[in-house]
């Protein structure tokens, strides 16, 4: 079973919750949370088979940027995507996709757009500490 670890830096919870798609979400620590449409934090997902690429976009998603990056000692693809949640709020997904240990990893920093300028630096710092193991 693939595992990962990162330093939560006091920004996200150490213990994750498992989402419906199998991702694990480390929510913002209580002191940093604010009312919003989404659950802000860092999520990590591992899928079988290496093929890190940009996923297909849904009708309510807008791809803002794609750039090569490096994460966990491996080449990665970093993307910034905006998602409209039912016409109610815009959520930012900043994602790093990489292949490591025979798996396709996706690390995502997420939060409401209105909170993003405040949240993004800390969430990126958490993701920068990610390490994965096969």
């Amino acid at each position, binding site marked *: 079973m693939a595992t990962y670890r990162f330093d939560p830096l006091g920004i996200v919870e150490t213990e994750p919750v498992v989402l419906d798609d199998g991702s694990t979400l480390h929510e913002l620590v209580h002191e940093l949370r604010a009312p919003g449409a989404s659950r802000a934090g860092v999520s990590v997902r591992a899928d079988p088979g290496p093929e890190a690429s940009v996923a297909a976009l849904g009708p309510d998603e807008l791809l803002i*940027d794609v750039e090569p990056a490096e994460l966990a000692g491996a080449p990665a693809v970093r993307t910034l995507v905006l998602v409209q949640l039912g016409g109610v709020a*815009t959520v930012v997904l900043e994602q790093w996709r990489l292949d490591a240990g025979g798996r396709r990893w996706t690390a995502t920093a997420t939060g409401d757009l209105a909170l993003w300028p405040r949240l993004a630096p800390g969430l990126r710092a958490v993701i920068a500490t990610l390490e994965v193991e096969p």
Partner: protein
Amino acid sequence: MSGPAFNAETGLLTAPREVIAALATIVTGAGEADAAEVDAVLAAAGAGSLAEPHPKLADALTPMRSPIIGIRLGKTGYVMPGWVGGGRFTLHVYRGGDDDQLVPMPAEHLAHFLAWLLDIGPRPRDPRPEETTVDAAALDQAVANRLAERSSHGLLPEPLDSAIAHGFRDWWLAGSRWTPAPDAPGELMLEGIDTDAGLWSVQRLEDGTTAIVRPVTPMGTFLALGDLLPSNHLIDGSAPRLALELTPVVGGHAAWVTQALSG
């Protein structure tokens, strides 16, 4: 030309440019206009009237009646007025050849909407100079030429010249003004040039004759667009609305484009 239309689900009004301008003039309190003509078009579109607008149109008019932030959006040589207030954002969208639209949405959708409207998306990341100082009039001329599908070759230093002459996609301007809290800024202006080689920001210097052009990433541009909605602490909360003289009302062709093309 399409006829007037109103989407009762979204509150989007499609109507002739002069009618939406008249509507904005009346609703913002900027002056008098032909209310009877506005009412006739609203009725034909099924949007109610100035006195009794359809509830969705009333939502769209909320930020126009009491704007907290005024937006000016320039794109493809046109400047469009927008208003933020009461948690809503409404923009008078200019459309060449078709009737214009009054587009309403929740205020927090502003950055997402602008990213879509300005086609902010992935661009090449080839190396470009950190900044290029140019003559502002030459830059205006180059952009105006390209907007008119004329050559701009040779007007600017390389590699900016080639980027605009051979890979021009669009020019845009996004500005916002608000009543500032003490010691806070009261406006933000972003100007961008979109090319196949990437996005460029334009900083106009106070001397009026010089501009500095810098390469910017789509991500940085998107985050800057988010700043058009200032944090609450930057806004004077005691001001009932943006002062009338600072409130945008109508738009039109960007004057400098017209000037550059007539020169």
